[in-house]
């Protein structure tokens, strides 16, 4: 599990009409264990609440979860809303079960959400460790120029 030298601030929640809570609970648990600060918004979080909270809490990353198949409905404006709110460079992750039908090929699902402006799109059943690795890498990348020494350390 990667450990962060600088405490990342993570906003997390299930979006829209989604009530699945187990994934975000585990993810939050793993993030806290790895040293992150987690602001848990819980289930059925409106898109606007993600934006408002992320700004108010000065978050590094927003982790959107959606399991009930309705992800696309709720996410199309999210990146634009962050831009408008002046947080254009915030990391935006999404994971869960992102299409209504399991038959939809993963590549097309991923491409769709990337084109909506998500930084990373996680396939179903992604283990928390994978998300942590990704976050560590993205933060290292972001802070690379100015915080060369601090960076991110993998333990």
């Amino acid at each position, binding site marked *: 599990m990667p450990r962060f030298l600088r405490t990342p601030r993570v906003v997390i929640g299930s979006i829209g*009409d989604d009530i699945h809570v187990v994934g975000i609970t*585990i993810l939050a648990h793993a993030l806290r264990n790895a040293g992150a600060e987690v602001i848990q918004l819980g289930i059925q979080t409106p898109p606007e609440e993600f934006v408002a909270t992320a700004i108010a809490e000065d978050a590094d990353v927003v982790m959107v979860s959606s399991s*009930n198949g309705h992800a696309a*409905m709720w996410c199309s404006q999210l990146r634009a809303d962050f831009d408008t709110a002046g947080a254009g460079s915030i990391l935006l992750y999404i994971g869960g079960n992102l299409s*209504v039908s399991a038959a939809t090929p993963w590549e097309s699902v991923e491409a769709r959400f990337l084109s909506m402006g998500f930084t990373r799109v996680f396939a*179903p059943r992604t283990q928390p460790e994978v998300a942590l690795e990704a976050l560590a890498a993205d933060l290292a990348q972001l802070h690379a120029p100015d915080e060369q020494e601090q960076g991110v350390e993998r333990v």
Partner: protein
Amino acid sequence: MSEQPTNAKLSLDELQAQREDVFRSQLDRDPYDLDECTAWAARNAKRGSVSASLSAAKASGRTVVVPRAGVASMEGQRALMRELDEAGAGVLPITVDSLTRELRFDEAARQLAESTATESHLNGFPIVAHGIEATRELITSFSKPVIIRANAVDLRIVAETGMASGGTAFVSGPMYATLEYSKNVRLAESIPKWQYIFRILGHYTERGVPAGDDAVGFAQSGTCSVPSLMLVGVVLDALIMAGQGVKHVMPYAMLQGNIAQDVACCLASEILTQEYLHKLGFTDVATYVASSDWNGAFPHRAADAYGLIATNVVAAAIAKVPLNYVKTIEEGVGVPTAEANAASIRITRYLFRLIGKQADSLMSEDVHFEKELILMQARAVLDAVLDLGDGDPVVGSIHALERGVLDIPFSPNVHVRGNVLPVRDAAGAVRFLDHGNLPLPAESLRLEQQRLAVRAGSGPGLSYQDMIDDLQFLELEDELTAQPNVVAPMEP
């Protein structure tokens, strides 16, 4: 809607007044004509009903197998139901999408418009957008009875529409919907909304439609549930249904992979529900235990999922439940294909027949142990809840939740303390890792402790991390991944 809800039955006038409000505010229209609706539904129910099928099954020791399924378009839903019918489903489901459940009727209609017979943009059937006429036409084209499936805090319009369209059973109640499906709503707010629905079901019942309802209780958290606690919610839901005149209740039992405990849970579900219904004077409510295949994370490989379903069905067959909700072998993957639905129903029916014949020979000592343990714990909590309400389950549960006398693990609801945690013992039976403030008999905790000791072994006690690990207990993935073929060299 009074400020302090109680379990008293709504008068028909009160119901009518509430209906005006609800239809006006949520749909901007007059309520459906209740007389026309009940008269039509009563004629339709003569063709058969969920309760009649369950009653026949219970009497003969058979099990009705029921899937869950819904897609957006009428064509798609009809094809899906035909498929399930042919595969041997005993009752056909219409699962409502979650936009409709959240009262976003317009958005649901928009997504319906963008869906086709083969591609659904919704995770269920937008019953309000389709409307009564079309849905009646759908339901009457099948010979098997139909259950309308949905879960949310406010399903008044959905329930009205479903019953008016010929559904003869509905799902859930305030315990499950509030604590498992909502973030901010309090019981004091949600119970009256569910009482409205139950009053509607009761009214249909009086008019000749023996409307049934699943008492889901605290059965489906997506994690594992200690059976006694699961059934506390089941009984409370059932008591509130009965309060409004519901006469056909399906008390739940979620199957979790430990056969002895699952059998015991099914048996205890019937015992406890009837016991407390009688205690509160509801002596004419028929109950049909509804077991449900595991409702947490499923293995994503079909062969493993078959194994999990088989384990569940063996338990349900030993307990001779009249109703089993069947998951599919693609549960861990996504909305199932036609073939997956059919195959899952087939293995389920196959096992109910084969194990059903030998059910009595498979009752073990441990089933009795688990049953007594469940009864002991559930009665303690239920009695405490009722005490807090001076015998009224509505008042009692509102107070109990505040004090942690009711509490469940992993609830998304902010008003739930969430101090209770489940953990599996070495055999996979679900126990309390932490029982929070639940008033459990010391003896029961001692018995649980004994069983947990086997898993803990000589190491440190069980921890939160063990509970997290348990979320994948039924996937057994790592253990099943085959070893690579590393050939040892022959000695010279």
